[in-house]
């Protein structure tokens, strides 16, 4: 066997821990990051995730305080508890970052996503799509004789479920904003 022919996790003789870190429980966390809305701040945050090999499930960003030039980045990420702690610490030391909140551990939070669905079709399928949209409390924001655009706000799971139902009914395009989240209570 060539000395370099080793499989990941197959040897205990290594200065790096070659065991698969994903063998530990992976958790999904929603982080709210308050940042100065300065040029390049989003690139800085995203670069941190890619440069250090962290995952991004979804990310939303917009200025929330125009006078204070403050933006809120909501990022949904996955990792082991140790990795999640590292992500928070690494975000926290970026100079334009003011605050990092882990909404998943800081108590209950509301998480919502907005999505637009374009569904094309005629006849029975079109009627069925409209009926399901009503059940899901989706709004029709555009319609032609061959298509609807539905708008829906809800949890990511609800949006997934709706998309699944629309697929056989002529779903041709989806646009999702990613998760926006706030902690509950005062």
């Amino acid at each position, binding site marked *: 066997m060539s000395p370099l022919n080793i499989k990941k996790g197959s040897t205990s003789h*290594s*200065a790096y821990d070659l065991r698969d870190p994903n063998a530990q429980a992976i958790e999904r966390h929603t982080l709210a990051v308050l940042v100065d809305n300065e040029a390049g701040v989003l690139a800085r945050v995203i670069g941190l995730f890619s440069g250090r090999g962290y995952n991004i499930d979804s990310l939303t960003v917009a200025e929330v305080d125009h006078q204070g030039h403050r933006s809120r980045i909501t990022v949904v990420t996955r990792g082991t508890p140790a990795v999640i*702690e590292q992500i928070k610490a690494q975000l926290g030391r970026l100079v334009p970052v003011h605050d990092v909140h882990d909404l998943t551990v800081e108590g209950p939070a509301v998480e919502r996503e907005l999505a637009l669905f374009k569904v094309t079709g005629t006849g029975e399928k079109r009627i069925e799509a409209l009926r399901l949209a009503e059940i899901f409390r989706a709004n029709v924001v555009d319609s032609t004789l061959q298509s609807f655009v539905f708008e829906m706000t809800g949890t990511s799971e609800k949006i997934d479920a709706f998309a699944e139902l629309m697929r056989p009914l002529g779903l041709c395009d989806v646009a999702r904003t990613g998760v926006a989240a706030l902690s509950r209570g005062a």
Partner: protein
Amino acid sequence: MSRQMTGAKMVVQALKDQGVEVVFGYPGGAVLPIYDEIFQQNDIRHILVRHEQGAVHMAEGYARSTGKVGCVLVTSGPGATNAVTGLTDALMDSIPLVCLTGQVPTFMIGTDGFQEADTVGITRPCTKHNWLVKDTEQLAETIHQAFHVARSGRPGPVLIDIPKDVQFATGTYRAPREAKVSHYQPKMKGDIAAITALVELMEKAERPIFYTGGGVINSGPAASQLLRELVDATGFPVTSTLMGLGAYPASGKNWLGMLGMHGLYEANLAMHGCDLMINLGARFDDRITGRIPDFSPRSKKAHVDIDPSSINKVIHVDVAITGDVGHVLEDLLKVWKARGRKVNKEGLAKWWGQIEQWKLKKCLSYRNSQKTIKPQYALERLEALTRGRDRYVTTEVGQHQMWAAQFLGFEAPNRWMTSGGLGTMGYGLPASIGVQIAHPDALVINVAGEASWLMNMQEMGTAVQFRAPVKQFILNNERLGMVRQWQQLLHGERYSQSWSESLPDFVKLAEAFGCKGAKVDSPKDMDDAIMAMIEYDGPYILDVLVEKHENCFPMIPSGKPHNEMLLGDASTEGAIQAGGAVLV
């Protein structure tokens, strides 16, 4: 007092107001207005380098030997990209730098203009923070903010990209105290409850050890003083990373020497066998820990670090203290004294007995020779002949660097400048010039290998032009020594591309640069050669022809825990297993 002035004038004014005395740089089209202002004043000295990488390493040497922020000025495009290695080096080793780069005019950004590069994009991951200033009104404030960020908290390099039209335009200058207070204010004081928890552990510990790092040096001379007081008062042994050498004096009675991959036997075994590890400003680098599951398996660990992201990153610790090492040491001493200065005397006496046993191994011993100069011997003589002087040492990267760390003793902080985190070959020569510029009368020696040295040898021109009498102590084995050592131990002695043919004649090279050079190849001439180098008033290259196939020991082979070190005379055949081969 606010005044109207051009952006270029503002740059020079802001640097003066920040206390900058020296700028290392290289002019070019996009920074000409700033160079024009530099020409018209005498407060700031400009050191013209030969390559922008050299400028950054010089600024690093300057910063590390003074504790001040180093300052670099380069042009757009290639000027900025050439600086990237130096910036990354400074980021890894937490060195405070402010790098100013020129940029094409704002209206040309994004058009692929001549010498345009996305400098803030390229340097975003290799700086602590960076800015593109698009408005002259913002320029002064940004520079003041940059100095604040570079020196606060965990220090690091920052970069300000200044388009040429911003340099020409007029705006309002604001002095540092008029600039708005930054929200970036890292926590200096450690949590007193955690400090007390650590004191409780220290009182009971049977086998404690201080593991110190570059954070002690970065915290300032007071931290080194407090460390000495704490070590001497408690009687605990102390070891240090490569970055922290000099914080505790090498002549101190509790000193175990450097730890890590090429650290001392007693230091590594003490780390492995301790029951309380007190990490002061070090970061559990992989050169230190070896195999993580076997790293000091039976100890409680405390970690003091100003950077919260360093804590629990690699090694889970029992007591985490976020704060500046100096501040924490002060509180630690106070609490420990207030609680009655207790230590476990019995346990400590046994622990020292054990450590003395390990010391008997004499892990740095090597087979000397009458015929060829052993690199260890060259360094032993250098140490002996320069010991009493206020000496500054820089190094390149490789075997010579590890030997220098093993065989040279440092009595004070800020006297040892080496590229630790990034391991940048070509660091030492420019760094030595930066140190010499800061300390014109001091003895500054760059311990080098010939391969590393060649990487930035153009900077000899800078040394000669600015009369920096740096001593280049080149341990020449005509090999990439550390690569060769790994190939011998790990790759079946297939020495792929690890030797240099057609090396220059270093004596003639010195003459070509307008300085002095000498060659030494016999152990009996070593002392005279070193003395001639020290006594020469000017830059000097000493080409020391050393044993070509010497290996650097002790060594913790990749894939082994601390207690399985290789010592000099050990058989190295099959010492490293397959798993270790994938590691650097």
